[in-house]
């Protein structure tokens, strides 16, 4: 199984919040006005040294997902092809055990009392389309794909930065 996941580049996120709404539009989160994705802004430092940064977080599609273990009816499961943590809402009993277990607050509860969550736009993914939140992201802070590919991209990006600094140091 290839594990799919999100990746996030904190240096590019502008807290524009488009990912939150694109997800709501894709998933028809209209009546409840709940959101599967949340953007949190954090301020660090004071006056001239202040830094404001933001993180967009949804379900992390954990490898060893606590919500899957906590679910008494096996409504929450991992998709075979992608490792996406998904839910069969037909057998969810709305017990909130997953909410207790999830360290990220990724489980949401709809008006029918049952859990609803991000499934990495599983049917888009298997149809070679990016998840709605990734497609909408103008700064490319948010990406999705096979975990190995995502980490490889991050390693390459970091390596280029390291190489550039080494070259600059050498030239001095």
């Amino acid at each position: 199984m290839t594990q799919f996941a999100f990746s996030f580049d904190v240096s590019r996120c502008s807290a524009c919040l488009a990912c939150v709404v694109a997800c709501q539009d894709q998933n028809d989160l209209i009546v409840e006005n709940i959101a599967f994705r949340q953007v949190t802004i954090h301020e660090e430092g004071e006056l001239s040294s202040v830094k404001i940064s933001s993180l967009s977080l949804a379900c992390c599609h954990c490898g060893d997902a606590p919500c899957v273990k906590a679910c008494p009816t096996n409504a929450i499961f991992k998709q075979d092809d992608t490792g996406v943590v998904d839910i069969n809402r037909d057998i969810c009993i709305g017990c909130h055990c997953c909410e207790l277990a999830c360290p990220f607050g990724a489980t949401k509860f709809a008006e029918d009392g049952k859990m609803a969550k991000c499934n990495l736009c599983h049917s888009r993914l298997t149809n070679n389309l990016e998840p709605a939140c990734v497609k909408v992201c103008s700064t490319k802070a948010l990406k999705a794909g096979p975990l190995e590919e995502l980490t490889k991209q991050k390693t390459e990006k970091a390596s280029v930065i390291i190489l550039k600094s080494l070259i600059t140091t050498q030239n001095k």
Partner: protein
Amino acid sequence: MISHPDLSIEQLQEGKISGFETQIEIKKTTCAICSANCGIDASVKDGVVIKVEGTAENPANKGTLCSKGAANRQYIYHEDRIRTPLLKRGGKNSTEFEPISWDQALDIISSRMLEIKDQSGPESVVFFSGFPKRLRPFLKRLAHGFGSPNYCTESSTCFYATLIANKLNYGCAGEADIQNSECLLVWSTNPFHSATADVSNLLDAIDTGLKIIEVGPLITPLSSHADIHLRIRPGTSGALALGMAHVIIEEGLYDSDFVNHWTVGFDEYRKYTKQFTPSATEEITSVPAASIIQAARLYASSKTSSLMSGASPTVHHTNGVQNHRAITALIGLTGNFDRKGGNRVIPSSHYGFNTRQDEFEQSKPWSEMAPRIAQEVLPVWSELVEQAQAIPLPAQIHSGKPYPIRAMLAFGLNYRMWPGSDNMKESLKKLDFLVDIDLFLTDSAKLADLVLPACTSFEKNDLRVWSPNYAIWTEPVIKPVGESRSDINIIIDLADKLGLDDPLLKQGQEACLDWIIKPSGFTISDLKAAPGGMFLPEIETPFFQYKEKGFPTPSGKMEFCSSILKKAGYDALPKYVEPKHSPVSAPEMALDYPLILNTGSRLPMFMHSRTFRLPWTRALRHDPMADINPIDGERRDIKTGDTIKLSTHRSSITVKAHITQRVPPGVVAMFHAYPEADVNLLIEPDYCDPISGYPGFKSLLCEVTKIMDD
């Protein structure tokens, strides 16, 4: 359409995947919530939009959108959409309307407008456009065809004052050529939240070494990328620019060749900048002297430097035009005007390339019409801008001087655009006849005698061209909601009812647009063949156009000393004066109102008042909140979420506190246009820049106090 054998129909439907199995079709349109007009792929099933995405092949947004654009479904299908023409019952103060037919509505409008024209002259009827942009050439043509010089728009508070400043300096404006630049000076604008879909290019340029100097009191998403961030006291841009010029001149970093050959007034300018030493400039702007020197050196000594500013932040001050002149003077001073990697001149028509828009709009010369509103008071505006300034409109409605204003035909009117918005609201009630055309029955529409329902961009034909060369002609992707109609078609129908002798307008929108874009060599039919839009043949715009033709100023050169300003009785140099109400200029007032109020800076989920009513965007910032620095909050025992009173010497509003270092100490930022907390109530109607008439939205004096909950 593509078939998807691996997925069940349920899965395809759940994912809203287009195709034969799901009967979901992707139709191309544009978003019209802001003027970026991003390309939209609307997923349509059974005549209903079920999802939106950005158009991948559109170079303007490359498949992306912002939070507002992504919320388009809640905009187009909002329950508050007006569905029929509405006629007010029971007098001016009533808010009761009855549905009437389009025929009845257009008959009433034309007969009332013609009656008022007969009695008081065509100039007593104002033609106004709020935020909508595409209809403007048509509305201006209608106004002048009717005989009224009083065509005015929301641009009375947006963009034109920066254009005036540029025209005074250079005769035209230059856009930042970021891709070829080594250093970008970003002056009080936040492209991440005002042009969200267009920032990937900027980030990529930063990744490959573009240096960033950011100027502005607020921390923006750009700040963490900036090499230098100069957090000025609001309203002191002019002083900072003059301080930078001082360093550039003293250290011999200016382009003496350009200055000697292509400018006038340099000696006086040089003499004037002498007083703006780094330490004197620090005193005024609160920016450390060392940072001013560092920024001036980086901007002036980079091989190519460009300047990016917003449409309005630098000019929403009572000293706005001169501030912006001082800022843009740095471009010429360093030889970066109309140069590769500097600020280059591109055609500035509504459509992004050379057109006959001006001829189309100005269907009658100014000389054949009465003077515009405030033409005498704002001579520079009237000389450089081809429309009336709307901010003095309420004053003329109240005074009836120099002639009465009795009626207004408005598209997307929002009286909360005006400083002292209650004053504007009262003036609208004095009109004999007010028509508003809108999507929703807004608070302004409720003041109208007659309201017409417009439709959204998803429901109509439209032409959009993105600079430099991508264009789209949209077909409606859904049927209009209710009986709503395209704004341009409403104008064309009205022209007919008013009996305008205008054969071109009679031929309809498409024929008019073909006439306007004729010099471009393509037609609307060409665009129809490419539903998602198409690239037009690229027009080479040469650099250094002034070397051929000179500058389009009275002297033919860049003017450090403006001959137009001198003639009109203003300071010819870009002189710095304090904002009318600042801690320095109004120390008495500052005893009671010690904080600086900065209003209207962009928030990512709102576009003026347009997306307040959408549950998705509203949930992202539910309450009207004033941003307050922790230091100022602590002094007043105010914490995030507290109910507070935000007041100026004019009035006060009740909002929630949001404690954040986004604003520097001593500054309070408040978003505008909230119906329940309208910050423009706090600003005097005449708190304006003397040259442009622009309101000083971004620097005045205020105080915040905690309201104890019972």
